[in-house]
């Protein structure tokens, strides 16, 4: 079954009937016969501001000068064409498709179930550190090009198997048109990543991006824990992450102020240099935008750690910072029974079925081995005593 026809640069394309994803404002549709692009259509007829914004964006090519690694996807899902109806009405825009399983929203790295499903055998702490670096790099480059992300969250950045990141919802980016000087503000935000000033209605700035960047890096480095999670001791029953941000209550800075859920990864998994930045971002930086670490500062601190990551000798996918004497993930698994990076070990279920006759011989195989081992150990003890 097919959906509607739209025109991209005058060429008609047929969209799939059902969107890949849809929210209240817009829906993203695959294109029949072309799996490299998608078309985002606005639900309500978009106004002239939005059309002018898209038209201006098409004349720009941000991050164009970047050295391209052949394996790296573009860092921005920049609009490639305006989508119009048969009557020439502006409906939305086309962009390159960044879909699963090759491209996964950052939030997919925040739960074990999704890490194991979408990044099998690779999403360890070293990988998360690398993604953090790429995220800081992308943010630095966008700021350098005069772009403010504005709506910066774990849902609108995708990451690929190499840890490279791409920002998706470019139509919400805030920028000033270099030709006309017209400013296009960012009108969206995601509360769990919004700095206090954004929550109370201020415009998006590089500093509000820096707040979201700090939260995302912290989440990556702790395998998904939000620095403003946890219920404050003096809160009302409906307290949320948003409230904790507004009140500047982070357990990273003020652990005594919050009921910290069992199993929350301890902030000390962050190497000291990075932990200091987190303290600044989630302490004084909450209400003082200028105090928040910039992407460049994060990059320097992340850089220092990348070459010193240690691998755990005991369990797979356990890597950690050089500042720690022992594997924090093994410690956590011992305390909580939850291994952050490896699948749960199922308790063996007793099967009340008698084994078939023909396996009888081999059943004693393991016993023999145990017997021989026991003898060897006894012999060693004896020898030890004799000497």
């Amino acid at each position, binding site marked *: 079954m097919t959906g509607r026809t739209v025109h991209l640069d005058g060429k008609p394309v047929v969209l799939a009937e059902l969107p890949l994803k849809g929210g*209240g404002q817009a829906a993203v549709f695959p294109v029949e016969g072309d799996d490299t692009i998608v078309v985002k259509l606005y639900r309500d007829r978009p106004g002239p501001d939005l059309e002018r914004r898209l038209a201006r964006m098409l004349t720009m090519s941000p991050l164009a000068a970047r050295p391209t690694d052949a394996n790296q996807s573009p860092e921005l899902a920049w609009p490639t064409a305006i989508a119009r109806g048969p009557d020439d009405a502006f409906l939305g825009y086309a962009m390159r498709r960044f879909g699963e399983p090759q491209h996964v929203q950052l*939030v997919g790295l925040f*739960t074990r*179930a999704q890490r194991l499903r979408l990044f099998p055998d690779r999403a360890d702490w070293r990988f998360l550190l690398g993604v953090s670096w790429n995220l800081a790099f992308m943010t630095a480059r966008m700021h350098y090009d005069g772009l403010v992300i504005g709506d910066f969250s774990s849902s609108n950045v995708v990451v690929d198997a190499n840890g490279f990141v791409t920002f998706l919802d470019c139509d919400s980016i805030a920028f000033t048109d270099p030709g006309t000087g017209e400013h296009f503000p960012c009108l969206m935000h995601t509360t769990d990543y*919004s700095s206090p000033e954004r929550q109370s209605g201020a415009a998006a700035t590089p500093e509000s991006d820096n707040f979201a960047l700090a939260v995302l890096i912290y989440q990556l480095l702790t395998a998904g824990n*939000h620095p403003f*999670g*946890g219920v404050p001791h003096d809160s009302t029953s409906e307290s949320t992450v948003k409230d904790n941000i507004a009140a500047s209550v982070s357990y990273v800075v003020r652990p005594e102020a*919050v009921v910290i*859920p069992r199993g929350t990864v301890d902030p000390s998994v962050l190497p000291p240099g990075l932990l200091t930045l987190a303290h600044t971002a989630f302490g004084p930086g909450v209400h003082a935008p200028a105090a928040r670490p910039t992407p460049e500062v994060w990059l320097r601190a992340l850089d220092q750690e990348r070459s010193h990551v240690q691998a755990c000798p005991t369990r797979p996918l356990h890597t950690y910072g050089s500042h720690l004497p022992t594997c924090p993930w093994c410690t956590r698994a011992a305390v909580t029974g939850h291994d952050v990076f490896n699948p749960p070990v199922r308790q063996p279920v007793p099967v009340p079925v008698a084994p078939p006759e023909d396996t009888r011989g081999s059943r004693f195989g393991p016993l023999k081995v145990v017997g021989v081992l026991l003898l060897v150990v006894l012999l060693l003890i004896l020898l030890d005593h004799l000497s």
Partner: protein
Amino acid sequence: MHSEYPPTLPAEYADIEFENNAQRLPLVLCLDTSSSMAGAPIQTLNDALADWTRELHDDVSLSYSVEVAVITFGGRGVGAWRGPQLLDPRTPMSPFVPAHAFQAPRFTASGVTLMTEALELAMQVVAARKAELRASGLQYYRPQICLVTDGLPTDGTGHMTDSWHRLLPVLAEEQQARRFRLYAIGVGGITDRGEQVLQAFAPKFNARIQGFPFRELLQMMSASANAEQKGAGDEVFEKIFSQFKTQRPAWES
């Protein structure tokens, strides 16, 4: 209302519960499984729930914070389901399961329509869950309760009853205080009177839909959960709901 679901957590679920400190989004499906749903409708519901469960597992965003509980009203009473398992009302186990671990139950349709009691149980499990999460230090988004029925509230003998009136002041207060978002959806051959009950329960988010578009309904619940995670304003939820209400099911066109 006293809670039959004290804040306890069986040890065997600790592994799932403490994955991370994500703010949780409790979602309750409160479903009519009375005799009028027998045949194709309950089959459609079972299939849609199985499909939606797969989508939920694959949705990286929703599976970060959504947890699902199912309440049914049919047979001889109401029941709370922990995934595919119908809970013994005497056990203190919470019916909420994290999205990635949720398994769809399969229902059979029979019996009476204790809609009032089911909604009361839904409110009760939500209140208990909030207390449980809070005690564990976990925050929550506004829970969503989705009531789906094709009939009218009855008593335990299958006779229509006006006992649902007792819910109205409670529901009004709870929704006013933003303690949960209630969707009340009439399907199949629901009558005008049935629709009026739903309008009274959920003045903003009620609908009367032709046929049994459970798939679209569950997708609407996902879209709404997504908006909740994003911190969207009320107008976004109204938009999502009106899109659901006005979309024509494929078999009508």
